[in-house]
């Protein structure tokens, strides 16, 4: 399994889901989320050759900086901070426990940056449960992470938004999946798929 393939697949999933992500953000936001993720994904893909041979940490930092510099919107700082924090926190050859710890640190960085907490209908509502699954020693870990990401993303439909543009909707956001959560679930499940197939 090459890191390059993981990144290639995960970013491509976002590009392929442009219309779905756009529609989700149109329902409860301003409609740009699909384009934002596509722009970030393609900017990362353009850096794939440069990242060849660098460590996981360095690649994560590069991807994070690329998100910050190229996306804008909420997604730029949020996905950028997530990736940069992971790049900073992960040790070499990380275990699933290491991933869990780095993800916890990332969630804290996100909360510091954007003031969002669990249950406020953002991608934190995918990251937090996934982090908890990763922290456990359980069989079929990859399959469980994948399932958890999907379920958690869907569960955002029942939440009231408190952060981001959809927070201005009050009750009317109910029933709609949070677009950032959906992107997060797509990325995680793509990574799981690539790891499984490898």
């Amino acid at each position: 399994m090459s890191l390059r393939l993981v990144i290639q697949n995960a970013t491509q999933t976002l590009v392929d889901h442009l219309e779905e992500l756009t529609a989700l953000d149109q329902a409860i936001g301003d409609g740009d989320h699909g384009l934002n993720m596509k722009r970030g994904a393609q900017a990362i893909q353009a850096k794939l050759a440069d990242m060849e041979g660098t460590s996981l940490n360095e690649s994560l930092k590069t991807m994070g900086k690329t998100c910050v510099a190229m996306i804008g919107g909420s997604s730029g700082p949020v996905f950028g901070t997530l990736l940069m924090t992971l790049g900073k926190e992960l040790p070499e050859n990380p275990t699933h426990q290491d991933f869990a710890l780095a993800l916890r640190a990332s969630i804290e960085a996100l909360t510091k940056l954007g003031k969002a907490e669990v249950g406020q209908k953002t991608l934190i509502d995918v990251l937090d449960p996934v982090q908890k699954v990763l922290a456990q020693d359980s069989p079929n870990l990859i399959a469980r992470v994948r399932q958890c990401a999907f379920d958690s993303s869907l569960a955002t439909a029942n939440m009231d938004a408190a952060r981001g543009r959809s927070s201005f909707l009050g009750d009317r956001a109910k029933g709609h999946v949070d677009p950032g959560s959906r992107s997060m679930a797509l990325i995680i499940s793509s990574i799981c798929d690539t790891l499984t197939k490898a």
Partner: protein
Amino acid sequence: MNHADTMLAESLDGFAAAHADIVLLATDREFVRRKRNKPGKVALISGGGAGHEPLHAGFVGHGMLDAACPGQIFTSPTPNQMMNAAQSVDGGAGVLFIVKNYSGDMMNFQMAAEMLDQENAVVIVNDDVAVEDSTYTTGRRGVAGTLIVEKILGAAAERGDNLQQLKILGDAVNKATASMGVALTSCTVPAAGKPTFQISMNEMEVGVGIHGEPGRRRVALGSADSIAEELTSAVKKDLGLKADQEVILLVNGFGGTPMLELYLMVNATRKVLAKSGVTVARYLTGSYVTSLEMAGCSITATVASPEFLSLWDAPVHTAALRWGM
């Protein structure tokens, strides 16, 4: 009209060509800046997603902004744009960022502020009273009142106020300003290719945001008088407006509203205000803070102190707002 991907770039090129006497467009179109720096003056920088034109680039020039960073359509610009703009227009007296209260804008400006070497401060604009400040919101949105904050701060920066004075003044103007809007149609983000929301000919969206975000509620299309009544009473309540107070009144079109209708709204609004003894000291009417081609309008009122009025009246020379010079 042209390819959605290059539309923003080409539009910025057209803007820069048309206003070459007052602005410069930076490399990679990262920001629009005032043609000449004024040494010793605090640099005012704003920015935000495109699609709200003439906000913000249309307000770059003497007596208003020093630079504006345009993001993609409805997408906050990046920290990199803001930092580069700050470096470019720095006059040695620090940088004041004027930021509309959206989580994307806030996070990007915050990252820029942290990485910046220069002394800087942020004024957050959150004038939209459509959504109450409940536990379910991050606070209110920044909408058309941004123009008023930028104009008054721009005049104060021009006369030589320092960073701290401007920060205090900006917060005070924001606090004295309230807005609320209504949409009759949706806008269509070009790259998305279809309307952000569906609305029929005889409905309107009350409390709509400037990104076509759905508003508070959907109701049957009302008369201009009833719309003015509803918008104005929300604004009045928020500002605690009382008899004998004066306001600056901005009736702002969202991009697809004819002037004929905006002035109809001006008339309806001033009558509503007059009923409670509030006088309009200054009027501004036009499509200044828009949502692409959305039809509808917002009303903004700023409680007008003599100082606010004299700063409002001070000369300004930008692409979209010009008087006294």
